[in-house]
């Protein structure tokens, strides 16, 4: 796979080049924080952003998505027939996605693409998108990617990786899609001779800073029932207020609800993010709710990420260590603390 070098001064030109024939998305400052948005002008792109407030999952699985439309007009032969809403699947590039968030999309694939079923919109969006990652030279204090099977320079989920070398970016192709992208960028400079060493040094420094903050190996070995019944959940759940912040900011929370909305004789079917933190999430039509208590809902979130998912898919855990939930939980529930409790199964605080 090839690599090219882009000086910081040249970057806008390169991005401009990419916007020809592609929709380019990247971190854009919106008020107090950054969000992945379509770049309306190249200057909007802000690669100095440490990470976006909301994860880029919304580019593939929007908060609210129109699925179908229908009419209920009497006498209309089309009445009651669901019609797919056309969507834009033209090629797009996501610039500056962090390795953890890209890795998360891989994990989400497990849910949206299986042997039996495929979510067509997820699949098409994944196919039409080239992910150009930005390596983390400077991880946050709340980051823990190295503890959950990915890392600040992990290319697993990416098509190409940008590494900030100070005066410019090294752009490395990872997949064939990434290679195609690189081949279209002819205005590149020579790659500095010591680039590989500098990348390795940055990677080492970032990884060392992150360290390994907990070890989930014991959780894999432990029986699910034992963890389920562990006494520490009572302590973990106390402060939770059951808002959806953690799940909505999380790049690996994929749950959704489907709602039909009808206005006079026209209607639509919408897919909307849902959260296991909400009591309504599991409420049965008959009125029974298997997770009516806060403890059950809090436990579900952590067990799903750190136990059920690894047990079911046996290839890693459903958390990428982006730290969004740690940073933004209004009551400071820290998944790292919970992970330690789960692996130690002891109720004493860290």
């Amino acid at each position, binding site marked *: 796979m090839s690599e090219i070098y882009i000086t910081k001064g040249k970057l806008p030109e390169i991005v401009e080049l990419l916007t020809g024939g592609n929709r380019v998305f990247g971190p854009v400052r919106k008020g107090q924080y950054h969000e992945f948005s379509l770049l309306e002008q190249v200057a909007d792109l802000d690669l100095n952003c440490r990470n976006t407030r909301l994860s880029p999952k919304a580019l593939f699985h*929007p*908060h609210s998505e129109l699925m179908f439309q229908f009419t209920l007009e009497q006498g209309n032969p089309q009445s009651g027939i669901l019609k797919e809403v056309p969507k834009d699947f033209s090629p797009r590039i996501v610039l500056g996605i962090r390795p953890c968030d890209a890795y998360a999309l891989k994990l989400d694939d497990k849910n949206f693409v299986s042997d039996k079923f495929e979510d067509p919109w997820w699949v098409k969006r994944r196919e039409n998108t080239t992910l150009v990652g930005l390596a983390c030279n400077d991880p946050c204090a709340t980051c823990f990617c190295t503890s959950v099977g990915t890392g600040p320079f992990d290319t697993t989920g990416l098509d190409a990786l940008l590494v900030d070398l100070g005066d410019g970016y090294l752009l490395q192709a990872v997949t064939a899609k990434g290679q195609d992208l690189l081949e279209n960028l002819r205005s590149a400079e020579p790659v500095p001779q010591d680039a590989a060493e500098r990348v390795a040094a940055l990677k080492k420094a970032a990884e060392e800073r992150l360290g390994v903050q907990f070890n989930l190996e014991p959780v894999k070995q432990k029986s699910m029932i034992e963890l389920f019944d562990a006494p520490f959940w009572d302590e973990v759940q106390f402060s939770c207020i059951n808002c959806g912040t953690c799940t909505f900011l999380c790049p690996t929370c994929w749950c959704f609800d489907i709602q039909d909305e009808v*206005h006079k004789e026209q209607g639509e079917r919408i897919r909307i993010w849902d959260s296991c933190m909400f009591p309504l999430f599991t409420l049965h039509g008959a009125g029974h709710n298997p997770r009516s208590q806060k403890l059950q809902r809090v436990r579900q979130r952590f067990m799903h990420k750190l136990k059920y998912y690894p047990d079911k898919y046996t290839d890693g855990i459903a958390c990428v260590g982006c730290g969004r939930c740690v940073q933004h939980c209004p009551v400071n529930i820290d998944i790292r603390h919970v992970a330690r409790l789960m692996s130690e199964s002891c109720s004493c605080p860290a």
Partner: protein
Amino acid sequence: MTDWEPKIVAFLCNWCSYGGADLAGVSRLQYPANIRIIRVPCSGRVNPKFILAAFRQGADGVWVSGCHPGDCHYIEGNLYARRKFTLLNNLLEHTGIEPGRLHFSWISSAEATKFAETARKVVDAVKAAGPAQHFIKKQAEVA
């Protein structure tokens, strides 16, 4: 829009204002036909959600009317309603609903003339405000 006629939802209490409307009818008093009446037990029964629901479904105006203070069939229902709707009206206007969309009145079952007169005033005010622009729930504006 010269031929536009507003749709107005009126929540009238069973004991007074609905009676007033009834009497206006049997007395053959004229008032505009823009009003759709929903009979409620008491003005205190009207939940702010009802008013929002009416606006969301495209009402150009909402009118709540009950017994005069002191005459409530349930002694005090309208007195609670008075505080509830004063605050609701203030908050709605504060957040950008035009004045003239939401109306409140006290009309007894004997006050057919006041009913017809208030109905005219309400319709005129809503007409002056024009077709509703805000709070109307249409097809979801989502991706």
